[in-house]
């Protein structure tokens, strides 16, 4: 087991280096002089230019520059935002909980509907329900989620006035961030109605972000269940006279869940991507919207550092899923 963990962990080192290389060269691909790019449109006088060139180590060979960058990154120094002058890492830390809260709600939503739908579709293969689930999930999989968000706003916010259009919580409330997760913070604050306001604001973004994972989970659960239901041990269980519920819940589902868990892990990367679009539509103050705003403000340190951090987060989640998978499924652990 230790060997398995060590191999998996060591495999991410080249990936991490690759991501830092990408982030490093990113800023150099921007046309023009990097200092002028960093200084923005205000321009810069030659003396200061010279000084900054030294300060950033830009007068040294490119490999040395990369070395300097890498050692800074490893110490958690990702530069400062050109707009707010705040360290990029601090801004990321302040906004990240909002994205995580949204992503967790979305994956829970996707699981709560996707798993049962996939299981029932498999049990009633070729029924109307099965075709319905497959049709809907393929539609969900093809959904342009930025449009889906607008349509849900049209229906639920404009037509029926049920849900708010943007933000995380009503402006009436001021919640001191303790965990950064508003659902928890509002409960801690004991402010009347704040929790429900946070819930209301979460509903539409959760549905929008959860749609694609929901579709993928439903399809995957169905095909994994179908495969498992054809196995010999299910026939044995039936022959033993076990109840249908016992066969499905204990014998089939536990084996069918293994590939489903992998898919859920892979969906987490997709979730962070989707968060960029979802947060833009609902003005959700998370890291996705922060990145997009940085592009339009030409805030290159934020773009560089933010993309690097998101890449590292996705990489770490994938690693954790990989390790968890090895724990659940001994076959994986021993084959490599």
């Amino acid at each position: 087991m230790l060997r398995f963990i060590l191999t998996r962990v060591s495999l991410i080192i080249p990936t991490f280096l690759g991501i830092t290389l990408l982030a490093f060269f990113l800023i150099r691909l921007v046309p023009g002089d990097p200092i002028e790019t960093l200084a923005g449109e205000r321009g810069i006088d030659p003396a200061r230019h010279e000084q900054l060139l030294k300060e950033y180590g830009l007068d040294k060979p490119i490999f040395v520059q990369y070395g300097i960058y890498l050692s800074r990154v490893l110490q958690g120094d990702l530069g400062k935002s050109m707009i707010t002058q705040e360290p990029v890492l601090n801004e990321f830390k302040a906004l990240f909980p909002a994205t995580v809260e949204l992503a967790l709600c979305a994956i829970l939503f996707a699981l709560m509907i996707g798993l049962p739908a996939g299981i029932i579709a498999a049990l009633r293969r070729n029924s109307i329900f099965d075709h319905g689930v497959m049709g809907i999930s393929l539609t969900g999989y093809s959904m342009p989620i930025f449009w889906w968000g607008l349509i849900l706003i049209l229906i639920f916010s404009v037509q029926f006035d049920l849900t708010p259009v943007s933000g995380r919580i009503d402006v009436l409330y001021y919640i001191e961030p303790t965990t950064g997760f508003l659902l928890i913070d509002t409960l801690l604050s004991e402010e009347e109605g704040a929790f429900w306001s946070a819930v209301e604001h979460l509903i539409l973004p959760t549905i929008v972000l959860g749609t694609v994972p929901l579709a993928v989970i439903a399809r995957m659960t169905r095909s994994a269940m179908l495969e498992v239901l054809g196995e010999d041990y299910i026939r044995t269980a039936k022959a033993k006279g076990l109840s249908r519920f016992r066969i499905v819940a204990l014998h089939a589902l536990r084996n069918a869940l293994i590939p489903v868990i992998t898919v859920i892990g892979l969906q987490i990367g997709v979730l962070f991507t989707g968060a960029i679009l979802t947060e833009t539509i609902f003005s959700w103050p998370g890291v996705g919207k922060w990145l997009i705003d940085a592009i339009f403000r030409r805030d290159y340190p934020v773009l560089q550092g933010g993309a690097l951090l998101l890449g590292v987060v996705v990489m770490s989640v994938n690693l954790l899923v990989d390790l968890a998978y090895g724990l659940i499924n001994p076959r994986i652990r021993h084959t490599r």
Partner: protein
Amino acid sequence: MTTETMEAPAAAAPTATPPHPLREFWGYFSANHGAVAGLVIIVAVVLVALLADVIAPHDPNVTNTALALKPPFWQEGGSIAYPLGTDPIGRDILSRMIHGARLSLLIGIAVVAISIALGTVLGLVAGFFRGITEIFIMRLMDIVLTLPSLLLAIVIVAVLGPGLMNAMLAVALVILPHYVRLARAAVITETSKDYVTAARVSGAGTVRLMFKEVLPNCTAPLIVQASLGISTAILDAAALGFLGLGAQPPSPEWGTMLADAREFVLRAWWVVTFPGLAILITVLAFNLLGDGLRDALDPKLKR
């Protein structure tokens, strides 16, 4: 695709001889109603795109503020001259969507063409030369795959500058690893087979082996992936357009149209509804087609 489907019914009636491969393919493919529906939609979209200049009732870029935000014809205040209504500066939405079909198909096909061309070459090279070349190429592809695809595309476009060409390049790079992996995997299974050994023994060079012997035998998975890739490309390019990083206004790209109309969502439902619906239907059609092709071409799934 279209040529195959048109030839298939014309093939000779089956006798004792095994059915023509195309006929067999059509047999499997047509059993999947979803795939046929997808194909029909795609043919329709292609026709619309080709005939855009003829069938679009108005010029997609002519503005007329007197006609701004007219609703679709079945609503009060709408007129049949502008069937799906007009946008905030009085352009006909239907005409813009028809011209947008051209752009979206072009994006999908061009992106996948770039990806396949580059991807198969890289995959063939990795599969044939193994060793350090393979490790380098495949590790690079793993890194690209690790990063969320849209994030990577956004970063690339942010650096290269917003615009349709850069968006297409970014999406092509992002979907590249799938083709590299497919081509490499196919090469590795194929090169151990007798026909490749036979060709090698009879003196065929590596390039000939790569392109004339091995490549034609791994086209099936590539075709399936291409169909699915077109849907990803259209979706991601539209997302970039929506974020203001893809095709720029006044280009009638569907995602860009949505971005233009976003602030009017509370007043005029039609300006956001129709372009998005067009994206959804087109992407869905390519996904249906891809699923159908996979079922029909994958020998493992054939009964």
